[in-house]
């Protein structure tokens, strides 16, 4: 499945994969062209973290970013979002192993929140990142994916709307 690397001169763009590993787990992987200590730094220093965690295309802006990266330390990210109340994401770090492993909780969603484990594996100066989101139950992950918490329904509505738009224009 590996996409063939284009013959770009610097070939910096690596492939991101997402896989539902089990009933309760989703895993994202990506290689970053830097040693683990640098990637780890980008995950743990707030002024660096806030520069990449919210890509411009999200349409969100980060109002504040507090990361107390140590076991038991908390984090809190507050976003502003056009046309709605600011949203907060928070949780705490339950494992911090410099340059190799970070584990944090996601508590903004109540009991159904996942535990995120990030591993940093360095090979020849590059780092393979793997982010595991482990949900408390299959139901919680399914809810995240959207079949039961209304988001799937909302996407369905959106799909229908798009279909309707197509159909209407067909008639005109």
């Amino acid at each position, binding site marked *: 499945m590996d996409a063939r690397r284009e013959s770009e001169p610097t070939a*910096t*763009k*690596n492939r*991101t*994969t*997402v*896989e*539902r590993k089990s009933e309760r787990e*989703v895993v*994202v992987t*990506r290689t*970053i*062209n*830097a040693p683990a200590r*640098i*990637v780890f*730094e*980008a995950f743990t220093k707030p002024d*660096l973290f806030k*520069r*990449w*965690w*919210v*890509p*411009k*295309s*999200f*349409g*969100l802006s980060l109002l504040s970013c507090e990361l107390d990266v140590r076991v038991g330390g908390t984090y809190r990210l507050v*976003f502003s*979002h*056009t*046309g709605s109340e600011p*949203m907060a*994401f928070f949780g705490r770090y339950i494992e911090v192993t410099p340059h190799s492993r970070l584990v944090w909780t*996601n508590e903004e*969603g109540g009991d159904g929140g*996942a535990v995120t484990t990030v591993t940093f594996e360095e090979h020849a100066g590059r780092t393979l*990142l793997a*982010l595991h*989101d482990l949900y408390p139950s299959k139901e919680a992950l399914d*809810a*995240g*994916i*959207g*079949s039961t*918490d209304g*988001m*799937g329904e*909302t*996407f369905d509505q*959106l799909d229908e709307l*798009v*279909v309707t*738009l*197509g*159909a*209407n*224009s*067909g008639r005109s």
Partner: protein
Amino acid sequence: MVQYMRARLDASFAALSDATRRGVLEQLGHSDASITELAEKFHMTLTGMKKHVGVLERAGLVTTEKVGRVRTCTLGARRLEEETAWLERYRQLWDSRFDELDEVVEELKRKENVDGRKKRE
């Protein structure tokens, strides 16, 4: 992460708030089209149309593929099964996040090289 996905959903609706973009979706409902064709159809500049298509693409409503010099637009992920579609949106989200991470680490690497050189001097 669910909250981020919600934010993207809002982006989808925002994408639909514009008459031209709704028109583009209608058009693509009939058949795929290139950006040039869409620009002509809607009497717009290529740059203007690219922007609209970009908004639709980020909202997951349209996908584009470049073959040779022509970028073809297709109605987006709705054709996929729900979970597959979700995973694909999730992947896109992380992909754009990692692209920005690449920039941050490149800068850190450059800085480290400069600092290293200073130390050796």
